[in-house]
C-alpha cells in the first residue's frame, strides 16, 4: 500500500514536471508571436500545472468559477486528438483588444471576435506545436470557436472526454502579461491520450515507473 502511494506520488511529480516543461516551451513561443502581433512586450509567468486522479475530485479550477469568461475552444486532430482552450475574463479581453486596435473597445462585434479568435489561434498553435514536438507527432489545430460562459461549463465536455481516455487528469494554465498592464489569458489543454506516457516512451524511458 505504502509502495503504491510512493509510485503514485512519483508518477504525479513526473506528469507535473513534463507538462510544465511542455507549457513553458509553448508559452515562450506564444508570447513571442503575440508580442509581434500587437507590437508590445509580452511576459509570461511560469506555467501552473494541476495533476490529479479523477478520484481526488475536481475542485481545481483556479479562476473564479462563478465569473463568466470568454472561452475559445480549438480542437486538435491528426495523430492524436484533444482540445485546447483560451479563457479570458471580460475585462482582460477588452484590454487586450484595446492594445491590438489601439483604441478603447466598447463593443464586441464581429471584428473584435475575429481578433480574439486570431489571438487564440496564435497562442494555441504555439502550445500545440510544443506538444507535437515533444511527442514527435503530427497534430493539426482545427478552426477555433468562441463562447462566453461559466469557465467550468466551457471545459467540462473536454474534461469528461479526457477522463474516458487516461488515468490522470490534468489542467495547465499559462498566464500572459502585456507590458505593465496585467492581462491574464489562461491557456489550458486536454489531450485525449496519455501525453506524458507517450513522450516518455518516445524518449526511450520505457515505462514511467
Amino acid at each position, binding site marked *: 500500500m505504502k509502495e503504491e502511494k510512493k509510485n503514485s506520488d512519483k508518477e504525479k511529480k513526473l506528469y507535473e514536471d513534463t507538462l510544465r516543461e511542455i507549457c513553458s516551451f509553448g508559452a515562450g513561443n506564444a508570447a513571442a508571436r503575440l508580442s509581434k502581433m500587437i507590437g508590445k512586450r509580452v511576459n509570461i509567468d511560469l506555467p501552473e500545472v494541476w495533476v490529479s486522479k479523477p478520484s481526488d475530485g475536481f475542485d481545481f479550477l483556479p479562476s473564479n468559477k462563478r465569473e463568466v469568461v470568454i472561452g475559445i475552444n480549438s480542437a486538435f486532430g491528426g495523430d492524436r486528438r484533444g482540445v485546447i482552450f483560451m479563457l479570458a475574463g471580460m475585462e482582460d479581453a477588452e484590454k487586450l483588444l484595446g492594445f491590438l486596435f489601439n483604441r478603447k473597445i466598447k463593443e464586441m462585434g464581429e471584428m473584435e471576435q475575429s481578433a480574439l479568435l486570431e489571438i487564440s489561434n496564435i497562442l494555441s498553435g504555439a502550445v500545440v506545436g510544443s506538444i507535437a514536438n515533444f511527442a514527435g507527432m503530427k497534430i493539426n489545430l482545427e478552426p477555433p470557436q468562441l463562447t462566453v460562459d461559466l469557465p467550468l461549463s466551457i471545459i467540462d*465536455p473536454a474534461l469528461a472526454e479526457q477522463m474516458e481516455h487516461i488515468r490522470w487528469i490534468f489542467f495547465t494554465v499559462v498566464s500572459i502579461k502585456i507590458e505593465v498592464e496585467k492581462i491574464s489569458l489562461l491557456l489550458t489543454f486536454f489531450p485525449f491520450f496519455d501525453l506524458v506516457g507517450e513522450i516518455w516512451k518516445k524518449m526511450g524511458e520505457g515505462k514511467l515507473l
Partner: protein
Amino acid sequence: MEEDGGREVTIGDYAVTTDSGVLTAHGIGSCVVVSIYDRRKKVGGLIHALLPKQDPKVVKSAKYADTGIELLWEESKREGGVEFEAKIAGGAAMFGSNTGKRNFQSALKKLRELNIKLIAKDIGGARGRNCFFYINSGKMRIMYSIRENFSVRWVEKTI
C-alpha cells in the same frame, strides 16, 4: 445576479440533506445535475455528474450519472426518504459535444430503473447553467448568463 450560500456540490460529488437549506452546483455544461426529493419527508439531494456510465466492476462513484444516482437514492433512503421525484438540469451540447445528451439519457434510464418519477427537466442547449436546489420546497432554480458586449445579464427559470 446570483445568490451565494448553501452547500456547493462540485463535479463528481453529491449531497443529501434534511435541513431547510439550498444545494448549489455551478458551471454545469455537459454535466448533469439530478435532484431527488421526498416531498412529504422533506428529504432530498443533488448529484453533479460528469460522465454517463460507470464500469460496473469498480466502486460506485458520483462522477457517473448512473452510479451517482444510485448513491444519491441510497443515502436519501437512509435519511428517511421513501417516495422520490426527480428533476434534471444540464446536459448542454457545449461546442457540439454529445456528452451532455449521453449524460441525460443515462440519468433517465437509471431513474426509470429505480422507479423514480422525473417531474421536470431543463436540459440541452449550448449554454452553461448554475443551479440552486431548495430542500424546503423541492424547487430548482436555474440561471444562465447572456452576453451583452463585455458584460453579462443573468436570466433564470424555476422548475
